[in-house]
Structures are given as C-alpha cells and as structure tokens.
C-alpha cells in the first residue's frame, strides 16, 4: 500500500492535478546551538503541499514535528534549506500562515470577540471598513459556533470553546496555509471528537490548506488527505507520506468499519510502533 519513500521531494498531488504547490519545503535542516553543543533536530526535510489539502504530520514526541511547524510559521529560522510559500521564501511570521496553538493562546484580558477582532483589525485594517471588519469577525465566530459567547473572556469558557475561538482567530486572518499545532491535544475525548467534526466541516466549506501536527493516529487518518510520518529524532526526517484515499465528507461512525480507513490506520501504527518505535531520549 505505501511506497517507502526515502527523503526526496514528495510530489503527490490529489487527483493527479498538475498544480503548483502552495507550500514547498526544500531540504530543510534545523540545528539548535546551545553553547558548544549542536543538536540536529531536522535533517533534509522536503515536502510539497497543494492547495486545499489537509496534511497531518505525525511522529513520536521529540521527533521535531513542532519544530517543523514553527519553521513553517516563521517563528524559528531554518539552518539550511528553504521554505517557500507561493514561491516566496518564508523567514518571518505572518498572518498568511496563521497558527492555532496547542494551548489556544487567547489573550485573557480581551473578550472572545476582541481576540478575533484584534486579528481582523491587524490583517484587514486597511482593506476593509469598520463595519466589514465587524461582520467578518462575527462570521468567523459563527463558523466555529461561538457567537453565543462573544462577550465572555477566555477565563469564563471551557477548553474546547477556547480552542474554537483560537481556530476562529486563525481563520479570520484568511491564511494561505492554516497551521495547527496539536490543536486538540489538551482536550478530553468527547470534546476532541466534536472539534474534529467542526474542523472537517469548516475545511469542506472553505477548502483551505491545512497542516496539522498530531500524535493521535485516528485523528490523522480521519482528517487528512495525506499523513506525513516522521522518524525519531535527533536528525528526524520524513519517513513516509501516506495518502488517505477516503471520500469526503467522512463520517466518524462509518469510518470504524471502512476497509481503507482500517488499512491506513494500520500503516501508521506499523510505522510508529514497528519500524520507528519510540526510544527514550537517546541523546
């Protein structure tokens, strides 16, 4: 089922379309220098991501998947190699690569509305009128079903709700690529399932390009068009890229017995637990 791919550019594109990738990661290495000790976290990572694709990056903890996301976000700089967003090199953070942070990172002194509005004002301050920005904010809050709590502060709403607002804030920036760093990691299973469904329906409506970091196999298979599996660090690289050929919309209950789903799940499991099982910090 999976072609074992050595670290070379992965050029899978859905439906074989000859399209240009939105995001290209080319031979990226990342080394962290701490005093005299240099740790190579990522080694020669190359990946192309096409428009409206939902790509998950999965791997054991410490494999550098969050580092990879931070590199794409521009929060850290690559050591060698390049990341190109629509053929322009990425070297600083920006709203075209909005991030949904693991711990929501809402500003606790602003209301839900103001948290989203801050992003809207910053990104569309020149191009939209005040009324348009208000409508835009309300629309995004409605999209994540958080309109009812728009005047609450983050301290007054539940973890799942905070993450919804975090998603609304990221979507409000109208990013070219939406980055999600283990967005549901801190949530309980029921809330997580609920949010995954929301993310799927939003993705179906907006057709946005999404890169999601996760360590949850079911989540990866359920949501993704492709699953990027990383080998263990240090010097982690992309082990395999697994296409998930499941028709959308996907239904959580139907998936449980879907042969393709089961097969994909098994492939990821085998990769993670047979060939690249977790080694407790060998460094």
């Amino acid at each position, binding site marked *: 089922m999976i072609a074992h791919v050595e670290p070379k550019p992965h050029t899978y594109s859905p439906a074989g379309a000859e399209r240009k990738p939105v995001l290209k990661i080319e031979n990226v290495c990342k080394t962290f220098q701490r005093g005299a000790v240099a740790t190579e976290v990522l080694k020669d990572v190359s990946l192309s991501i096409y428009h409206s694709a939902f790509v998950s990056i999965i791997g054991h903890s410490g494999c550098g998947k969050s580092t990879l996301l931070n590199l794409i976000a521009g929060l850290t700089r690559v050591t060698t190699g390049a990341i190109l967003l629509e053929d322009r090199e990425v070297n600083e953070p*920006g*709203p075209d690569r909005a*991030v949904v942070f693991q711990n929501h*990172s809402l500003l606790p*002194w602003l209301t839900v509305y103001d948290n989203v509005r*801050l992003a809207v004002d910053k990104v569309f301050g020149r191009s939209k009128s005040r009324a348009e920005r208000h409508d835009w904010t309300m629309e995004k809050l409605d999209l994540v079903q958080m309109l009812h709590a728009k005047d609450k502060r983050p301290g007054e709403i539940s973890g799942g709700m905070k993450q919804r607002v975090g998603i609304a804030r990221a979507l409000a920036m109208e990013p070219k690529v939406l980055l999600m760093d283990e967005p549901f990691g801190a949530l309980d299973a029921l809330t997580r399932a609920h949010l995954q469904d929301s993310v799927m329906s939003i993705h179906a409506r907006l057709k946005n390009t999404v890169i999601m970091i996760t360590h949850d196999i079911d989540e990866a298979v359920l949501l993704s068009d492709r699953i990027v599996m990383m080998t263990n660090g240090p010097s982690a690289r992309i082990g395999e890229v697994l296409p998930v050929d499941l028709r959308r919309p996907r239904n959580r209950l139907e998936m449980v017995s879907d042969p393709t789903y089961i097969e994909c799940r098994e492939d990821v499991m085998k990769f993670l637990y047979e060939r690249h099982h977790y080694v407790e910090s060998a460094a």
Partner: protein
Amino acid sequence: MTAQSIKLALVNTPVGKLPAGVAATAQAPAERSAVVHKLAPRPQPRFEQLRRVATRVAANVIPPLIVLALALIVWELATSGPKSSLPAPSKIWADSRDLIVDPFFVNGPQDIGLGLRVLTSLQRVAIGFSLAAVAGVLLGCLIGQSQWAMRGLDPIFQVLRTVPPLAWLPISLAAFRDANPSAIFVIFITAIWPVIINTAVGIRNIPQDYRNVAAVLRLNQAEFFYRIMVPSAAPYIFTGLRIGIGLSWLAIVAAEMLTGGVGIGFFIWDAWNSSRLSDIVVALIYIGVIGFVLDRLVAVIGSLATRGTASA
C-alpha cells in the same frame, strides 16, 4: 429548594402533589416523558436578606471594635498616673478636640485642620507618585524587554534602590532650591524602584505564547507595548504600584518634617517642638488611616484593571 432553578417534574406525578411553584401542566399521564419547568428563584423575604447582611457586617466590625476598646482601656490605665510622660486617651480628647471633630477648620495660616494638612501632603504624593508610576512602568518595560538595557541599568538600580528616601533630600534641595519640588522628588525616587522592578519581572514573564501571537499578527512595537506588554504585566505592575504608594506615604511624612510647610509631617514636627503630644497622637491616627485607604485604593483599581488577566 430555593437554590434550584430547574426542577424536573415527572408528568404522572399527581397534580396536587407538585411542589409549590411548579406550573401544573401535566395533561397526559400515560406518557412517560419528563417535562422541564423553569423555576424563578423564590424571592427572599426582605428581612432575611437584611439579617444576613447585618450578620456579615457585624462579624467583620465587632471584633476590631472590641480590640480597639480593650487597647484604649489598657492605654488609659497605663498612662493615667500623674507622672506619665505620654497622654492618656481622655487627655488627648480634652487637648485636641478641635483637631478630632473638625478636620477642615481654618483659623490662620498655620492653624488649620488636619484634613487640610493631609490634603496638602496627598497632593505632593499624587504628583510624585504619578511621575514615578509613568517613569517606572516605562523603565521597567525597557529593562524587562531588552537584555542589554537590563545588563546596563539593573546593577545601578539595585544599588540606588537601597538608598533611604531621606538621604535624597539634601541633594534634591540643592538641585531644586525649594522645599515643595524637593519633597515631590523624594516621593518620586522612593516609589519608582518597586514599580520598575515589578514591571520588569512582569514583562519577563510574558508567556511565549503571547509573543508568538504578536509575531504571527505582526504587531509593531507600539501595538505590542499596549496590546500585549502592559495588559500581560498588569498584575505585576499593580503589585509594584501598591508597594510604591505605601513607601511614598512613609517618605512624605519624613520629608515634610524636614522641609516644613503645611503638610502633616511638618505638623508633627511642629507639635513636638511645642510639646503638644496629644496633637501628635491624633496626627498619627490620621496618617495611619490615610495610608490604609491609599493602599486599598490602589488594590481596588488594580483588581478592576486586571480583571481576567490572571486567569487564562
């Protein structure tokens, strides 16, 4: 019962046995479904509420009153002898009744009520403390944000902040050649250190998440300052301000003793020189109460301004 706002009433409950306040809408006894009735909380009898408030107030007010009364009795007994060097409460009342009952009388340029003197002192504190708050927050942001500013300024601040307030007075008198600005400067230099240090700690403790959000949104320096830095560090800033106002009030009394004028500090010095011990005791009580009120004021403003900031 009153605490519950929602009550589930099974439909086949006999209507007559429904709890008071539940609308009797049961029609189909055969259906085994549940009907949800929303109950308005039953209005409490007014006297009950009053009684509760009164109990709470009494619980907080009566103990300190008892202790105060006991202290006054002990004081009265200890100082009532003919050879006593300090005045007893009864003597203070007899000597300084005008000061106690009317804080705002004016009988001449140096014979005015303590309330007016306190206002003069407060005015100095207000100016000095406001300057210290603004300068302290800005400097604190600077050394909290910049590693180099921190390395350059922090050692100097650490040395300067240990200098006692009054040690600054001669220098400032020499510089300003006037008592009033000198006293204000002493307040400023006393209050600024805790504000700087606490602000800097607050800035250094801004979570990386907020910095990442600011980076993704591409906030510029000014936006980052008032959108992220100040609100995020606000609890720390207010801790610094609260310590600062306390120190200011300590320093103003000492400074005024030396600079003269109409402040409460000079009043004490003046009363000492003319052996009016009773007046001094009254002034001390004034100073204590005002200091307490100032501290509470900053605390209340702080808790209003940082509403929601502490919890995330």
